[in-house]
């Protein structure tokens, strides 16, 4: 399956998260003819966030497809393609518009392998930018990753740095099962990182310990890793040593890394921007409370969005977890 158009050589570049996504797509399409991309405005326009820029020029309309405006169709078409051995990477323009694709995702993508006892399977990736904080209109700020995390048969992967975005997206495309790949658009261009464009994937189903510490474990994913890391800095100035974990794949969940860390620190603070009730933080908290019961020195704290719709942008910062909130929660569990 090595494409004749492959012309990518390993090079190291300083890139943003969204550029890393683009780089991974470009690498994999160049090295595997079965990879195709589809979605709204992804070909000629290169995607509204430019994640697919240049792909149409390099790989042509046959492999880079602007679809009609129908997310249910995008979700289902990708499934059909995948059963034929293609590896479709389908973009939902914003996570807020993925819901009409839910039936296809839940009833088919996640079940095709199980339903046919392995006869057919769905090696596809559904990409969607997600999260708030960019002054977007309503529905453009969703963080409903919990809905997907609850569906057996799906992987839900969330990168939080350019390097991880590159490596996790390659892994997601190569994974023989369906992956929901949620890109935190608030940090699409927040930082650049040097990424070697060498086609090396990094593992899924694993947490990443970004910083070691001994007093408390701060656990997050996606854009709020930014505030979580900042909170760790603030805590460190206050002589609190925080371990920071990026969950990376929120389902299936790497409970082992989480439990190891909490067994060491005895305390955990989970940070996510989705609303609290039934968020992924609930599963993480429940799992820690079950698995590290004896080691826990305080209840697991959750710093999350409120149980309401993300406000329009004038009030969105009041909804999003802030560095102070995380610091305060950490100090609270440590004080117990």
């Amino acid at each position, binding site marked *: 399956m090595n494409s004749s158009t492959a012309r990518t050589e390993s090079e190291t570049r300083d890139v943003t998260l969204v550029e890393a996504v683009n780089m991974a797509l470009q690498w994999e399409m160049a090295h595997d003819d079965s990879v*195709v991309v589809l979605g709204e405005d992804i070909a000629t326009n290169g995607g509204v966030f430019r994640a697919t820029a240049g792909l149409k020029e390099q790989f042509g309309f*046959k*492999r880079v*497809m602007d*679809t*009609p405006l*129908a997310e*249910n*169709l995008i*979700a*289902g*078409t*990708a*499934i*059909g*393609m*995948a*059963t*034929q*051995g*293609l590896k*479709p990477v389908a973009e939902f323009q914003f996570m807020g518009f993925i819901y*009409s694709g839910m*039936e*296809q995702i839940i*009833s*088919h993508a996640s079940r*095709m*392998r*199980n*339903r*046919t*006892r*392995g*006869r*057919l*399977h769905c090696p596809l990736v559904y990409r969607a930018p997600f999260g708030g904080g960019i002054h977007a209109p309503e529905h453009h700020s969703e963080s409903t990753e919990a809905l997907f995390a609850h569906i*057996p*048969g799906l992987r839900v992967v969330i990168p939080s740095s350019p390097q991880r975005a590159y490596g996790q997206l390659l892994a997601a495309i190569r994974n*023989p*099962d369906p992956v929901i790949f949620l890109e935190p658009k608030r940090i699409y261009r927040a930082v650049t990182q040097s990424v070697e464009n060498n086609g090396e994937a990094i593992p899924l*189903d694993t947490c990443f310990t970004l910083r070691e510490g001994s007093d408390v474990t701060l656990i997050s994913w996606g854009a709020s890793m930014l505030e979580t890391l900042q909170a760790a800095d603030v805590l460190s100035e206050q002589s609190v040593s925080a371990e920071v974990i990026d969950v990376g794949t929120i389902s*299936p*969940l*790497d*409970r*082992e890394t989480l439990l190891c860390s909490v067994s060491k620190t005895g305390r955990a603070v989970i940070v996510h921007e989705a609303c609290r009730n039934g968020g992924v933080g609930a599963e993480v908290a429940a799992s820690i409370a079950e698995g590290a019961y004896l080691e826990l020195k305080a209840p697991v704290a959750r710093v999350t969005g409120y149980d309401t719709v993300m406000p329009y942008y004038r009030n969105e910062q009041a909804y999003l977890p802030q560095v102070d909130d995380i610091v305060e929660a950490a100090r609270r569990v440590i004080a117990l």
Partner: protein
Amino acid sequence: MKTIHEFRVDSTCYLDDQGAPLGDLPPQAENTERVLAAYRNMVLTRTFDSKAIALQRTGKCGTYPSVLGHEVIGTAIGQSMAANDVFAPYYRDQAAHILRGVSLTELLLYWGGDERGSAWKNCPEDLPISVPIATQCCHAVGVGAAMRIRDEARAVVCCVGDGGTSKGDFSESINLAGAWHLPVVFMVINNQWAISTPRSIQTGAETIAQKAIGAGLPGHIVDGNDYFAVIEALDSALERARAGKGGAVIEAITYRLGDHTTADDATRYRSSEDLKQAWEKDGIKRLQNYLHEAGFWTPEKEQKLQSDCKATVDHAVQAYLATEAEPPTAMLDYLFETLPESLKSQRERIADKYRGGAA
């Protein structure tokens, strides 16, 4: 005000209700072997169907959707498709499945609550039975797109009921087939009912075929109990599709002669009068009469066929009943290619619990 576009919906029928030709028959009628094979498949399907219902009634099978009244359409689908075409079925396509190579035992396993009923050995690329209405239409265009991306001379047949055409999946998919010139033939099986909901409630459109117009596809109606009308329409639509000339919508008109499923009681919502009239159009009887008149069929052959079908079905039922349930751990073994770390303890728990067999 000027008219800028005009559209037509045509309808085809070759045999009258008694199976007598209404005029010239299409070339398909000359292939006697194929016509006879079609007839045999229809009878086998019907034999299987009544057996499956009987199994359900005696607690040996789960809820089952009778295919009564769809045998002609499914048989034509099975015959018109090439082995390397892909079938995107709904849940009432037994006649087509049989010709695609799905075994009767597999069909029984499926409706008998066993996932192995979809692990079809002989048509590995066909999509499994799709229970959520019309969702298979989106898969069908995805498969068609894969064929186009690879420049293959293959095609897809996608079945959907009259009810299913009201769901967005259908219109979104035919629209994509039109926009991308995909080799997908949508076979709408209009059996007049969606459970209790009559065709008149599904849509204000005079026909379902005309929905094709909004997708820029040709839409055509056939008498779904007339083998020649159905096979001709399919042969030519598939030929066009494989040749890169795009997809089509065919509305095959028939009547659901049974209850919706074994869980349904159709007498609650439709008259026995309608049903009686529908039986008079039965496509199997029609083709049998035609074959008789044409000298290709005899009562002896019929008797032999009936007993052959019965034997085939009985054999499949034995195999089905003899199939042990999968071990409960199977519920985790096919979810992912490789069981993720986090699920291993769950699998162990199930294995421990059911060591020595299911409860």
